[in-house]
């Protein structure tokens, strides 16, 4: 029974490489899409009502279980929506209005973590993980290619150094050849 590993057929390793490249392309496309969304943000609202709805959607209803102020039917959430509209009409910005609610309720009134302090981790971590994934995929693909070259014996492939036992066997064979020579 042979214990040696049988090398993969060339067609299969080619497919594996193509799948790896496709996965890498998907990762890079995802990274680009994330960056574009992060930089551009939501489209600007056309009316005060739309802007009020956008702000309300970023706030947690204080007396509900995991509902935004925009979605909550609670009277208190309704009053918060009314306050948002009034403050927008008074010329306050979305950040100023959110800060007003944070001053009373703390950061937990925000549905998304704040862009400062420990909250920044939530925004940076996905990019770090994605970058690590792309790096791992590149290293994996390079390792696969190197193994393929070694398996095919292509020039430029890095061969493993012979072991001490192999060197000894080679030296013995050469010595025998020299002895047999006339």
């Amino acid at each position, binding site marked *: 029974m042979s214990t040696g590993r049988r090398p993969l057929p060339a067609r299969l390793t080619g497919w594996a490489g193509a799948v790896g490249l496709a996965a890498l392309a998907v990762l890079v496309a995802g990274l680009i899409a994330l960056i574009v969304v992060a930089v551009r943000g939501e489209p600007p609202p056309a009316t005060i009502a739309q802007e009020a709805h956008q702000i309300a959607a970023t706030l947690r209803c204080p*007396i509900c279980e995991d509902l935004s102020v925009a979605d909550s039917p609670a009277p*208190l959430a309704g*009053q918060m929506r009314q306050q948002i509209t009034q403050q927008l009409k008074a010329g306050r910005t979305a950040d100023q209005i959110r800060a007003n*609610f944070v001053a*009373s309720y703390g950061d937990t009134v925000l549905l998304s973590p704040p862009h400062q302090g420990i909250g920044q981790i939530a925004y940076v971590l996905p990019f770090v993980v994605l970058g690590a994934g792309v790096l791992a995929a590149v290293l994996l693909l390079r390792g696969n290619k190197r193994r393929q070259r070694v398996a095919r014996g292509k020039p430029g492939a890095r061969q493993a150094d012979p072991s001490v036992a192999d060197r000894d066997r080679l030296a013995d064979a050469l010595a025998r050849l020299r002895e047999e020579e006339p």
Partner: protein
Amino acid sequence: MSVGVRRGLLLTGVLAVVAIVAALLTSGLRHDPSATASPLVGRAAPDFTLPELDGPPVHLAALRGQVVVVNFWASWCTECHTEQPALNATWARFRDSGVVVLGVDFEDNDADARDYIASEGSDYPVVVDANSNTALAFGVRGVPETYVLDRSGRIVDRIIGAVDAPTLEHTLDLLVGGGAQ
């Protein structure tokens, strides 16, 4: 470093990251936002002028110099009935010691509020927060919720749920200098 050791280290690293993320998510799910400390504790209470249920408007700033217990409540609130004897007793004990208990009726109607007050026998001032703007300014997450203000108008304590008479009276003793009997 052998391939086996390298794979073992990689697996350990991945498991460690998964464990950390799982721990963070679990702690987030177990955390009750309503139990979060109010950012207003230690700061000046938001000022308000609200109509009394059966009397003239009450301006919070006009009570400066007295210790104020602001209690958000509603007639439909079961826990408010539970705490009412404690509030009545506190008012009876401290009303002549520079302490004002002020009820703020939250998301209620006046007729039900009057019936509640009559049945509970409370006689401290009660104001009506008809549009809930005062509740929002105080960061109220439900009723009952109680805020204790010192003589300068600064919030020194926030009690979520029914007040406990000994705890509330201990806080007030400290604020009035232990003079009330």
